[in-house]
C-alpha cells in the first residue's frame, strides 16, 4: 500500500493549531463591524433590544420618542409633561434594554484543520466578527468549542473587555477529535440560560448528522444560524478517481471508482447542500456558506444578504 499526499492547500498538521500571531479581528475590521447588528428573526425580544432604537414601547428607561396614547398602553408611560403642554395624551417610547444572547459554537474536530487558512481559523475569524458585532450592540456572547467532548470557551460576556477574553480563548483552539454538535447544543442552552441566537461554525460534514445540533437547539427554542466553512479543495476537488481516501476524523477508508469520481463528488456535494438547505428551512435556520479563502468583507456581504447582519440602527 502506498500513500500519496494530495495537493491539499495545507496539511492538517500544519493547521491543527491557530497561529497565535495572526489576529482574529483587526482594528479595521472591528471598526467596520461596529455599524452592524446581529439580526434575530424568531426571538421577539431580540427584535427590539439594546441601544438600537425602535419605534415601539420598550422596557428600558431612556426615552427616545413619544407617540399618541392608545387604549391598552401602560398609564405609567404617559408623558404628563407633554400632556400639560400639548393637551394630548402621549406615551414615551424608550429603548428595549434586554440584550440578545448569542452563542458561538465552533467545530473543533480534526476535519477543521484543513485548508489555508484552515477551516478552524476561518471559523474563529468569523466567530470573532460575530462576537464583535454583538458586543458593539451590547449583546451577550458565549463561545463553545465542540470536539469529542464539547467545552465552554467563554461564558456569556459583554463589553470590549469580555470580547478580548473570548478572542484569546478562541485563538488557542486546536483541531482534533470528532464532532459532537448535539452535545455542544446542550452546553449552549445551559450557557445561554434563556433563548438566544446560536451560530454554528462547522464544515457540517459530521457523519452522525450535520443538523443534529441545529435540531437540538431549535427544540429548545433557540434561533440557529449555520455557517458552513469549507476549503476550496472540498468545494472543487481534483479528480481522485482510483484513489483510496482516509477520513481524518474517523480513519475510515473509502475506495473510489477508477473514473468518474469528480462528477460524482460534485453531485454528492450538491445533494448534501440541498438536503442541508431543506432541513435548515424546515427548522427555520439560516445557512451561510463560506470558503476558507473568502475575504471577510465578502462574508459580511453574504451575511447581510442572508439577514444575519443588519447595517446601522433603525430609527
Amino acid at each position: 500500500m502506498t500513500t500519496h499526499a494530495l495537493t491539499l492547500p495545507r496539511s492538517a498538521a500544519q493547521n491543527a493549531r491557530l497561529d497565535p500571531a495572526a489576529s482574529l479581528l483587526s482594528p479595521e475590521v472591528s471598526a467596520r463591524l461596529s455599524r452592524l447588528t446581529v439580526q434575530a428573526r424568531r426571538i421577539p425580544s431580540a427584535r427590539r433590544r439594546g441601544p438600537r432604537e425602535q419605534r415601539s414601547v420598550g422596557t428600558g428607561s431612556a426615552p427616545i420618542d413619544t407617540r399618541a396614547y392608545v387604549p391598552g398602553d401602560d398609564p405609567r408611560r404617559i408623558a404628563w409633561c407633554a400632556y400639560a403642554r400639548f393637551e394630548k395624551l402621549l406615551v414615551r417610547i424608550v429603548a428595549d434594554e434586554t440584550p440578545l444572547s448569542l452563542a458561538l459554537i465552533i467545530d473543533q474536530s480534526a476535519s477543521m484543520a484543513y485548508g489555508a487558512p484552515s477551516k478552524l481559523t476561518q471559523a474563529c475569524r468569523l466567530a470573532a466578527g460575530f462576537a464583535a458585532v454583538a458586543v458593539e450592540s451590547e449583546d451577550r456572547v458565549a463561545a463553545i468549542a465542540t470536539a469529542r467532548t464539547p467545552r465552554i470557551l467563554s461564558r456569556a460576556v459583554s463589553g470590549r473587555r469580555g470580547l478580548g477574553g473570548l478572542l484569546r480563548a478562541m485563538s488557542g483552539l486546536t483541531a482534533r477529535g470528532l464532532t459532537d454538535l448535539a452535545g455542544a447544543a446542550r452546553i449552549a442552552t445551559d450557557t445561554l440560560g434563556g433563548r438566544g441566537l446560536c451560530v454554528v461554525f462547522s464544515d457540517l460534514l459530521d457523519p452522525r448528522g450535520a443538523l443534529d445540533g441545529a435540531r437540538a437547539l431549535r427544540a429548545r427554542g433557540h434561533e440557529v444560524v449555520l455557517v458552513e466553512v469549507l476549503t476550496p479543495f472540498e468545494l472543487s476537488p481534483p479528480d481522485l478517481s482510483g484513489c483510496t481516501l482516509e477520513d481524518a476524523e474517523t480513519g475510515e477508508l473509502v475506495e473510489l471508482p477508477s473514473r468518474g469520481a469528480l462528477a460524482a463528488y460534485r453531485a454528492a456535494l450538491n445533494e448534501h447542500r440541498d438536503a442541508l438547505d431543506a432541513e435548515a428551512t424546515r427548522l427555520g435556520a439560516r445557512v451561510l456558506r463560506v470558503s476558507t479563502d473568502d475575504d471577510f468583507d465578502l462574508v459580511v456581504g453574504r451575511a447581510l444578504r442572508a439577514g444575519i447582519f443588519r447595517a446601522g440602527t433603525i430609527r
Partner: protein
Amino acid sequence: MSLAALVVPLTLLFLFRRSRNVATVPSTLLWQRFAIANAKNRRFRSLARVLSFLLCVSAFLALALAAARPSRLGDHSLTIAIVDVSASMGSGDHSPLERARERLRSDARGLGTTARFALITAGDTAQVLIGPSNDEEAITRAIDRIEPTRGTANLSAAIRVARGFQDHSTTLRIFHDGNSTTRGATDTWNGEVEEVLLARSAEGTQRDNVGIVAFSARAPQDAVADEDRAVMIGITASGAESASGGGSTARESGLETRRVQVTLEDAETTLATREVDVTPGALADVTVRLQVFTPRLTATVRPIDGRDDALQRDDVAELEITETVSKRVILAHGAEDERRAFFVEAALRSAGVTELSRVAELPVPLPEGALAVVIGDAPSRVTGPVIYIASDTGAPFPTRDLTREELSLRAVDPEHALTRGVNLDGVTIASARALEIPTDAPRVRSLVELDGGTVLATGRAGGARFVYLGLDPTRSDVVLRVAFPVLLANAVQLLTGADEVTSFDAIPFDEVAITKTPSLNAVASQPGTRLPVHPAFFFAGLAICVLVVEGAGYGKGWLR
C-alpha cells in the same frame, strides 16, 4: 511443485492489484456515497486484505491439488483381507465363506473416500484377487470371485503376499472358520491383525462331517500281474464338539463314531462298496484290491448313520492311473547315507518302482533308460535323468545348509506335475539344503521354497534332466507321509515319462476333520464417509467456491 512455484508471481500480482493511492481528506462523508468499497479503518482493511489474499492462495492451492488429481484424501488406511478358502469354509448351507463374503461386501460399502482395500485368498496358495484399491465396484467383483477350494488354507503364504502391500497404516483382517490356525503365521506380520472367526449357522449338526482324505493306488508287494493294484481310501470324520472342547480330540470327548458307506467306481461300474465305522479325528482305511487296469477311479463316501455331512466336496475323490511301465532305477548312496536310502527305496517301491538297484557309485555312462537317484554327494557329471536328494557335491547348482530359522515352508507350486497331489502342510523339517538357482537358468523351476531357499526344483543342467530335493529324509517327517512316495512317483514319471501316475484329488485331513471350534465375530467394520465426487473434482469445486466468495467479497467491498 511447478504449480506451487506460481504462488510467488500470484502474490506479486495480488499486491499490484491491491496497490492504490491513499489520501487523507477532512471527511469522507460525501465520497462514501459513490465509493466502491469502504473499510472501518486501515487495520480492518489490512485484515480484510489478508483474508482476501489467503482466500486467493487457498483457491490456488486447491486448484493445484485438483490438477494433481489426487486419488486419496483423508483416511489413507489400507485393509488387507485374507480369506480362508479351504474346503471347510464351504461347509453347510450358509457357509462360513458366504458369511465372509457378506462381511467383505459390507466392509467395501463402508470404505471411505480414500481408504483402500485389498483381498487375498488363502488356499493351497495365496492368490491376490484385488490389490489395494478404493474402487467399490472392483472390490465387489473380487469378492464375488471367492470360491472354496479342495485344499487347505496356506495363511502363511497369504500373509507373505500381504506384506508386499503393507504400508504404515495397514490392517490385516483374516477371515477363517477356525479350522486353519493363524498361530505363528501372524507372528511375521508387524502391524495390526484382526481375526474374524466365522461361526457356522448351526453349531453341532453343521459341523458333522465325513470325507475322503487319502486315495491311492499302489502295486502290492505280492502282485502277480501288472494290473494288480491295492487301492487305499482314507476316511475321516469331524465331531459335534462342544463349544468348550475346541482343543480336545473327538476320541477324548467321547464322540460317537460315524458309520459311512464307501463306494469305489470306475468310469462305468461300481467296483466295490464297503461300510466302515469312522472315529472322529482319526483315519479309517478302506483297502480294495483290484486286478483289472482302470485308468480312472472314483471313491465316494456317504454317511449312513442319519447324521449330517457338513462338507459335500470332500465326499468324492478321484484317482488317475496311467499304465505302468516298469523303469529301472539306480539308487546311489554312500555308506553313511544308508538310513536315508532306506526311506527313499521304500518310497520308490511304494511309487511303483519294481526294478531298483543300489550302488555306491553311479555307472558312467548311465545305462539306457535308467533313472539315477543320488543321495548325498553325487558325481560331477551324470549322463542321464537324475534325482538328487540332499546332495551337496555334484548338485547341478551350488547348495547351502539352511539354518533353523530358514526352515519354514514358504511356497509350494501345486500346479506342476511334480507337486500334484503332494501335500506338505504341517510338514516338519529339521534340516534341509537349499539349491541356489542362478538367475540365468530359465529352464530350472523352483517348486517348493522354504524361507531360506529352494528345496524342490526341476529342470535341465549339463544336458540332463534332474529333480532336486533338498529335504533330508532322516530329519523330516515328510518320509512318513503319503506326499513322499507321491512326490517320488511324480519325479520318476516326470523324468522317465512313462511311470505310473498316482494323481488323486482329495480334501486334506484337517479340512475334513473340522477340529476347531469357531467363535462369534469379534470385529465390526467401521463405516467411513465417502465424498460424493472424486477428490480432484472436490478440490476444483472448492477452489471455484473460494474464488467466487473472494470475488463477491471484493466486488461488494468487504475484502478490499
